[in-house]
């Protein structure tokens, strides 16, 4: 793999983790010459306005390696604008954004409008803008379960497949920070739970930082190290349990002190009572079909498939999955975060 330091042998044996950790380059870009930690992305007094309307006002933000930060906020609160500004796609009306030198960003947009006029296979999409090393590709497509999609046209993918392909592409250049802008929009609850679980696994294996925008508060609360509550400005910010007890947060989301859990439970009940159940069933069948293809392709290669299948056999037990992902937050990352200066 290209990012490993020279001389380190790369073997394809099964003892190698599916994703190589980022240690070498991450250290290079985040540790200063004096040994101090530098943030991957740092925004100082960042302001954005559309015409005369101020969308973001004096935002101060930074993200360190290995950290999972989530931005929550009501519609129109500037979440997507903030993400766009952080990747450099949004002109600022004030303030500065610093990227660590050599920073690689893996970006998964909210949605990607594919034009039928542009023929684009999934395989070709992965090679944009630079050609991907074959062994890196093999690892990522196996991990994100998109191998069976490689020869498909991008426009023919279903919503869930599309998001997985976007995630896979974001991971292919070994990002130091993975940025997800409501990446599960258009997925059902099962699909988005699986998507977040994949991100969690990836983060554990690669050690990249993750910045997400989400309206799915239960996911946010269980998986983040830090939550930023945004409404044009930063209302409050901190560890999930701290933020959910803040009056500013409660004013925006109107949940009780139990915050995330209460809201999550509500969501859960709601979907089961909902008459639109057949829609869900359809989606499951759909996914099953692809799973089947996938298994057919290379089930013997990757024992990890079994685990995935297992989840399908048990119909969505979100409670279990939710607590799983809480447990999955690695201790080393949490402690690493504590050791960093703010």
């Amino acid at each position, binding site marked *: 793999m290209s990012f490993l330091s020279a001389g380190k042998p790369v073997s394809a044996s099964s003892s190698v983790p599916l994703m190589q950790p980022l240690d070498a380059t991450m250290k290079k870009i985040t540790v200063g010459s004096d040994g101090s930690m530098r943030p991957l992305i740092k925004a100082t007094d960042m302001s954005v306005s559309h015409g005369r309307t101020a969308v973001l006002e004096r935002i101060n933000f930074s993200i360190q390696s290995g950290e999972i930060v989530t931005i929550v906020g009501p519609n129109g609160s500037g979440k997507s604008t903030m993400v766009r500004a952080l990747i450099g796609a949004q002109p600022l009306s004030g303030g500065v954004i610093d990227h660590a030198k050599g920073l690689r960003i893996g*970006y998964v947009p909210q949605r990607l409008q594919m034009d039928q006029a542009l023929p684009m296979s999934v395989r070709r999409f992965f090679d*944009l803008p630079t050609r991907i090393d074959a062994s890196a590709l093999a690892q990522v497509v196996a991990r994100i379960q998109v191998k069976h999609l490689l020869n498909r046209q991008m426009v023919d993918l279903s919503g869930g497949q599309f998001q997985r392909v976007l995630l896979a592409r974001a991971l292919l250049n070994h990002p130091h920070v993975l940025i997800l802008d409501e990446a599960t929009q258009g997925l059902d609850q099962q699909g988005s739970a699986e998507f977040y679980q994949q991100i969690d696994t990836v983060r554990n294996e690669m050690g990249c930082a993750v910045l997400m925008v989400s309206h799915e508060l239960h996911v946010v609360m269980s998986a983040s190290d830090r939550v930023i509550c945004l409404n044009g400005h930063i209302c409050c910010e901190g560890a999930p349990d701290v933020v959910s007890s803040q009056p500013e947060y409660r004013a925006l989301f109107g949940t009780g002190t139990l915050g995330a859990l209460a809201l999550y439970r509500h969501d859960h009940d709601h979907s089961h009572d909902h008459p639109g159940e057949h829609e869900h069933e359809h989606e499951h069948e759909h996914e099953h079909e692809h799973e089947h293809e996938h298994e057919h392709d290379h089930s013997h290669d990757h024992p990890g498939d079994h685990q995935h299948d297992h989840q399908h056999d048990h119909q969505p037990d979100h409670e279990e999955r939710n607590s799983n992902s809480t447990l999955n937050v690695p201790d080393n990352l949490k402690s690493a975060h504590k050791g960093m200066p703010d």
Partner: protein
Amino acid sequence: MLDSFILRAALAGIAVAIAAAPIGCFVVWRRMAYFGDATAHAAILGVAMSLAFSQSVFAGTLVVSVLMAYLVSSLSSREYAMDTLLGVLAHSSLAFGLVAVSFLPGVRIDLNAYLFGDILAVDSTDLIQMWVGAVLVTALLAWRWSALLMVTLNPELAYASGLKPRREQLALTVSLAVIVALAIKVVGVLLITAMLIIPAAAARPLSHTPERMALIAVAIGVFAALSGLLTSFQLDTPTGPTIVCVAAVLFALSNLVYRTRQLLSHWV
């Protein structure tokens, strides 16, 4: 019997087809057909100006086309849709160009040659300009190919990959203007957009990657240029429009083949 003017015409047609087809793909992908029109129609203004100041037509059209291309690529308006603005610019620049030509004192020019092309009048200087321009444009596009694809697909993904979408777009804008200046003698300002988009559109049903689409578009463009030239010679028809007619027939054929194949695959 290959007369030298036929040979020159063939070489000119090939140069324009090769350079126009890949740019044409981007015009199709980015929905820039009107953009091409505006740039091409402005060239007639360039013709008028170069004749008025006794400069080379190639230089005059190149300058005006670059200016126009740059102007339309930086356009944005809240009041009008983009295609409205481009339509206004495309047609008014054509009208102003035609009026300006009529003001030229003492010059009797063959307007048809500029509107529909005059490929049989290509001389060796034109030919050198065309091939140098075609090679430069193709090289620029090949160099920026992946970056331009990324920007076309999604500007935010491009930003996240460290690209500068505006800079990439500028490469496309300048290339388009150069193509216009090159193609004016071959197909004329009114049909330049056709040489850009018809080969690309004909290649679409036959392609599953952008590169394949560009290559097939080049092949279709070259074939249309050569057979259009020969056909016009045989039938004594205007060459530029004949080339475009052949390209249009190829477009219909490629779609016919594609749909037939689709129908068959449903049946079998």
